[in-house]
């Protein structure tokens, strides 16, 4: 196992294939276009953090914003709370997500495929309504406390979702699905003969798991955890909804307030966002340090065995635990969501409160029907476009000697530098004024451009992971056999990457149709999508109709998942990954 960690990988030189000059101009062009799309808005935000005076006015360059923000003890309290909350959540989510991934991908647990679909359903759930569902379930006056209050030995509320543990619990459930989806591929493509070798050498199941399986999956687990950590640092809805009543504040809440209030303090918000720049840089450095120089190759010319680990008497208990996870993380809050669409007022428990009106009105609303079509089109555009762009970026930095590959890797990370509300303002500043975008302003294509840029960190991480796993010898063999680069790419690499490309498409499709914070800056009536309807309903004091839009979004996600499953079956792909 140790020998698998090869000191260095051979990379194909793009220059070698196409000649030194012609070879890399397109790679540089691609990098330049991405840099313009990503770094230009971020540079504008960065400059704003050095601006004195009010937004939009000519002002001197100053460090005063940083002094003001980072000279305050309160900022460090916020940073500390943000970091420890993110750490605890990711640690818990990692435990749950990785165990689930291992059970689904590496064992003979019953209903594995079904459980995988259930985790996807958890991932589809609209985040904001799910948080409110947890308030209705586990708030002091929530359903669970009301039920438990009937027990003779229970005094007062047992659960209080407005607490540190409420935040940790609700967001760890969401993050665990995310970590599951990112780590299943690693477990699935692991060569079982390595585990067999361990057993032959006398190691018990636990030792094999600890010494062979876990180290082999470590890169994927680490990658998923670090990404989830950044995600948790920037998370906003859960913290503001559950944290405010408990006087728990995090950086993202503060940044949101500074960016949204009037007069807004964008200089302060962007200065505070510098923390995320440091965090992302730290994560990239940590990832390089921990994983650098190691090989993650699992798809090679040798083939590999996929034999599930026999759980024996633990098969059904393991299945029961997975189902319990689904019931708690998804079924309970989802039931509240569905129930909410049949209530005149969500959370008002009385028989006279039940109604079909929200569905009737929503389904008759031509805007909702148009939004449904727009949502599907947008999802397809981002799924396809995002996967293509991310695949190209990942290919250049993983599988070539392109001189700018480190820059490219950084570019793909950089949308994570600014939290959503600040990034949205940066995009608005940068894109609305660019003549090149004028013909498409307000169209679905404009939304797709914004969302593709936003999807770079996630899409390129997934695809880079997949590309790391494919051995270079396969392409070299094709090249030696006389195949051109294009033929090699089309006939060797593309089929091997098909599962991860499908995964990327599905994930980017789903993330795009759920996005809210960027869409509200760019949509028009013609490009209104379901998440905009959800937002309008939520803000307009009609959360029940917002929930209808949320559930329709989930239905679209399920259809997308079903289509991906069908594609997988028809094309003979063993799994999504």
């Amino acid at each position: 196992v140790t020998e698998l960690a090869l000191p260095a990988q051979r990379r194909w030189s793009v220059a070698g294939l196409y000649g030194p000059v012609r070879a890399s101009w397109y790679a540089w062009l691609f990098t330049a276009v991405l840099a313009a799309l990503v770094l230009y808005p971020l540079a504008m935000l960065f400059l704003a953090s050095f601006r004195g005076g009010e937004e939009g006015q000519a002002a001197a360059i100053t460090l005063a914003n940083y002094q003001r923000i980072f000279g305050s003890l309160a900022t460090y309290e916020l940073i500390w709370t943000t970091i420890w909350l993110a750490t605890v959540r990711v640690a818990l989510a990692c435990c749950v997500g990785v165990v689930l991934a291992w059970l689904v991908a590496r064992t003979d647990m019953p209903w594995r495929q079904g459980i995988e679909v259930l985790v996807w359903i958890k991932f589809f759930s609209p985040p904001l309504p799910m948080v409110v569902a947890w308030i209705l379930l586990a708030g002091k006056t929530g359903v669970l406390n009301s039920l438990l209050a009937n027990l003779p030995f229970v005094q007062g509320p047992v659960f209080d979702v407005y607490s540190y543990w409420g935040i940790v619990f609700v967001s760890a459930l969401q993050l665990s699905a995310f970590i599951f989806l990112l780590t299943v591929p690693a477990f699935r493509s692991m060569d079982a003969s390595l585990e067999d070798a361990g057993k032959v050498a006398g190691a018990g199941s636990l030792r094999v798991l600890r010494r062979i399986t876990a180290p082999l999956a470590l890169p994927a687990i680490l990658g998923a955890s670090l990404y989830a950590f950044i995600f948790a640092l920037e998370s906003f809805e859960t913290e503001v909804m559950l944290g405010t009543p408990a006087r728990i504040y995090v950086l993202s809440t503060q940044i949101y307030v500074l960016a949204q209030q009037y007069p807004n303090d964008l200089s302060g918000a962007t200065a505070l966002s510098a923390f995320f720049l440091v965090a992302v840089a730290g994560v990239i450095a940590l990832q390089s340090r921990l994983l650098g120089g190691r090989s993650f190759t699992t798809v090679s010319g040798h083939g590999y065995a996929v034999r599930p680990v026999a759980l024996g008497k633990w098969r059904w208990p393991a299945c029961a635990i997975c189902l319990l996870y689904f019931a708690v993380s998804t079924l309970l809050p989802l039931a509240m969501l569905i129930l909410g669409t049949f209530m005149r007022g969500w959370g008002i428990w009385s028989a006279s409160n039940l109604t079909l009106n929200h569905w009737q009105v929503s389904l008759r609303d031509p805007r909702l029907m148009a939004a449904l079509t727009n949502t599907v089109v947008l999802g397809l555009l981002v799924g396809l476009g995002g996967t293509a762009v991310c695949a190209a970026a990942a290919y250049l930095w993983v599988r070539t000697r392109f001189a700018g590959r480190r820059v490219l890797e950084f570019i793909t990370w950089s949308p994570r530098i600014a939290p959503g509300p600040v990034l949205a303002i940066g995009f608005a500043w940068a894109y609305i004024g660019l003549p090149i975008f004028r013909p498409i302003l307000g169209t679905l294509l404009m939304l797709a451009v914004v969302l593709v840029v936003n999807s770079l960190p996630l899409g390129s991480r997934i695809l880079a992971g997949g590309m790391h796993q494919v051995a270079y010898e396969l392409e070299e063999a094709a090249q030696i056999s006389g195949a051109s680069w294009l033929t090699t790419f089309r006939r060797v690499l593309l089929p091997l990457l098909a599962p991860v490309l499908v995964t990327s498409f599905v994930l980017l499709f789903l993330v795009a149709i759920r996005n809210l914070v960027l869409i509200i800056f760019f949509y028009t009536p013609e490009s209104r999508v379901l998440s905009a309807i959800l937002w309008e309903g939520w803000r307009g004091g009609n959360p029940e109709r917002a929930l209808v839009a949320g559930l329709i979004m989930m239905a679209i996600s399920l259809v997308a998942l079903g289509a991906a499953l069908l594609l997988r079956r028809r094309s003979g792909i063993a799994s999504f990954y």
Partner: protein
Amino acid sequence: VVDAAKQEGRVLVYGTGFLRGVEGAMIAQEFQRIYGISVDNVDGAGSPSFQRLREEAKAGVPTADIYLASPPWPAVVEKEGFLVSLQDKRLPALKEPKSVWKVDPASMSEAYLVQAPIYPNGHVVINTKLLQPADYPKNFHELAVDPRYIGKIAWVDPKTTGDVAFKWTIWGYIANALSLQDVWAIYANQKPALYADPPAEAEALARGEAAIAMGLSTFEAAAEAGAPIKVLRFADTPVVTNISAFGLVKQAQHPNAALVLMNWAVSREGQEFITQTRRSMSLRTDVTDKLPDVLQNAELVGGTKKGAAYVLAPVHAVFSADLHSKVEVWRRLPTGVPQADFETAITDFVKQWEAANGGPQHQAIPFVER
């Protein structure tokens, strides 16, 4: 103008207000039925709409025809120069006698019109399951100092919203019914449940997490769904009503259609339809308000005489926004701030602001309440 508007065929509104939700769609349909002009809108709340408008204006590609919002945004957008002066525009409704207006739509600015009064403020909302009539508060001061209300009040968190500064502007600065000491005492002594924004506060009250919510918000739907909610109005306490306002965006692509919509929305015909459809307050004296029962049946407590009624002046909207964003001490209320520091910081700001704005500005715009 109408002929040109029909040629334009459509109007796009940034903001929601009377065009919000299914009721808004019905209003848009009615307007289209009369004039053959379609209406659509984009909801971007205050800040995102403003940012969009600004970037589009800077790039010379405005998408919106009308900007519709609540204070302080109309005044902000006007100050930035994104709205066209309406003084020389043909808006026949504005030529009607002054007596038809509860508040003259053109009284606040040359660049925007008041479309409707919204959310009268001088009330608290209670959960009747958690608060018996004998315990109903009689005024804001009692809420702030009476130990009976410890742990029973829901209010917003000043770290996440400017609503507390806004409420103090209305109840304290204008109406003189809520002192700074009372605001401080509620946070310091009464252990209020804090929420991220007024809608979250309203929902928590409806669920029974708190007994008393400070101020009105979106309670109507919950009340109609059977939530045990009642509105209390304090006797002798002025009620200050917020407004929804709209203006014509510079370089609008459908300026005539926008003018026709604006004129219709303040005309008797338009107000009648909007008020009936939205069950809202009207701008006009010749149109009957159609308020939800929970507001219509607000109980007067602490006396028998209603306080005076006003609408919020633009200057107060900007004042409250500045007060929140520029005086950091609000944000220390939830975690504790010495009373003297709190009062001094706000009093100093108010003095400076008044000095820069020509003296005290306590007077709001009188409003004919029905």
